[in-house]
């Protein structure tokens, strides 16, 4: 016995099964991301500015990632429209661009993550703080790493500014450093005995990075999951186009709806995390 309404719509609701299902699922996803956004807002509003490192994310990279995701959103809907017009070849073309955009987004995100994990903050015993890189660009070093590796000192390349400085002063300092070129980032030697705390920009660094990695990693997992589903329907699942084209088009539409939701979340994530 065939399950009814997998291709044709129910006469009472006007919807086929998968569409009801995906909208209910997206409703649950709204609650998930909404809860995390609420957490971000309240954590940020309640935090001491000295502990909230805003302005550390790369805006040009984030903007490019936004444009990549917007492009994938339009190719997903164009691929569905191509199937509606019976053009399987054009559907395959647009959907392959979607998958490439997804992989590009994830590649850029992983580059951003790696950059964070080799970027450090040092709290010194005299109360000063600085951000920068350790010579050799190691990953995931902490205060305990210095004792474990029996290091007497570290060679540190400090950044031109610190996130506790007012934004205008940060931009001025960075602009001045850019003009100076390579000479701006002179390495300094910091004795281990002078270091109160050393942390990379990892979830454990601060509440900001904890919520940043939670939000973006969860979103990244959604991008990966969506890309895998779209790729399956594009590849091995494409046999259904020959046997049941209407049901296949519905699958493409429903996976596209999920993809648009993922894009929607990023449309809010980008300004909240990168710009504000």
């Amino acid at each position, binding site marked *: 016995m065939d399950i009814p309404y997998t291709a044709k719509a129910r006469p009472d609701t006007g919807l086929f099964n998968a569409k009801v299902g995906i*909208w209910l699922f997206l409703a649950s996803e709204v609650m998930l991301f909404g809860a995390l956004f609420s957490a971000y807002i309240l954590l940020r509003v309640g935090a001491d500015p000295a502990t909230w490192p805003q302005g550390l994310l790369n805006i040009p990279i984030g903007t490019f990632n936004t444009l990549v995701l917007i492009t994938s*959103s339009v190719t997903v809907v164009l691929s569905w429209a191509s199937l509606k017009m019976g053009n399987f070849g054009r559907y395959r073309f647009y959907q392959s661009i979607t998958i490439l955009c997804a992989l590009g987004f994830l590649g850029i995100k992983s580059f951003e993550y790696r950059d964070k994990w080799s970027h450090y903050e040092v709290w010194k015993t005299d109360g000063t703080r600085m951000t920068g890189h350790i010579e050799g660009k190691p990953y995931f070093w902490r205060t305990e790493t210095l004792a474990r590796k029996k290091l007497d000192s570290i060679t540190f390349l400090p950044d031109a500014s610190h996130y506790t400085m007012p934004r205008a002063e940060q931009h001025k300092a960075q602009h001045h450093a850019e003009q100076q070129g390579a000479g701006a980032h002179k390495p300094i030697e910091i004795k281990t005995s002078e270091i109160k705390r050393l942390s990379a920009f990892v979830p454990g660094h601060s509440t900001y990075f904890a919520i940043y990695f939670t939000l973006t990693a969860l979103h990244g997992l959604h991008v990966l999951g969506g890309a895998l589903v779209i790729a399956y329907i594009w590849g091995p699942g494409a046999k259904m186009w020959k046997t049941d084209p209407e049901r296949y088009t519905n699958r493409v539409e429903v996976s596209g709806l999920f993809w*648009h939701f993922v894009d929607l979340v990023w449309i809010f994530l980008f300004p909240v995390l990168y710009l504000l």
Partner: protein
Amino acid sequence: MSDDHSHEAIKKHVRTYIVIFVALLVGTLVTVGLNSLDFARFWVTVTIALFVATIKAALVAGFFMHLISEKKAVYAVLVTTVCFFAAMMYLTVWGRFQVPRGSEFIPAKEIPLKTASGGAF
């Protein structure tokens, strides 16, 4: 989703999708451009950024997700979701000063910064 699935109707939709795509690209560049301006108050920056983001989200939801011509059942699901989301936000904000019995709420700005071992920053 429109009930009219003729080729002509789909072609018209495709033209709309391209226009919306360009609008989204422009919206993104406008958001980034506005961010470089220094508004007097932070809440002005937040309001403008979220306003532009909401417009972009509405375009994606309305046209790419076809919500502008969807069925009542989908609207019912979404209206219910909005109500639950509002309730969740309200509960979170309402409970933000609640602390376990026996402890005291101290605003973050009054807490002296300490390391994990208890020393001061």
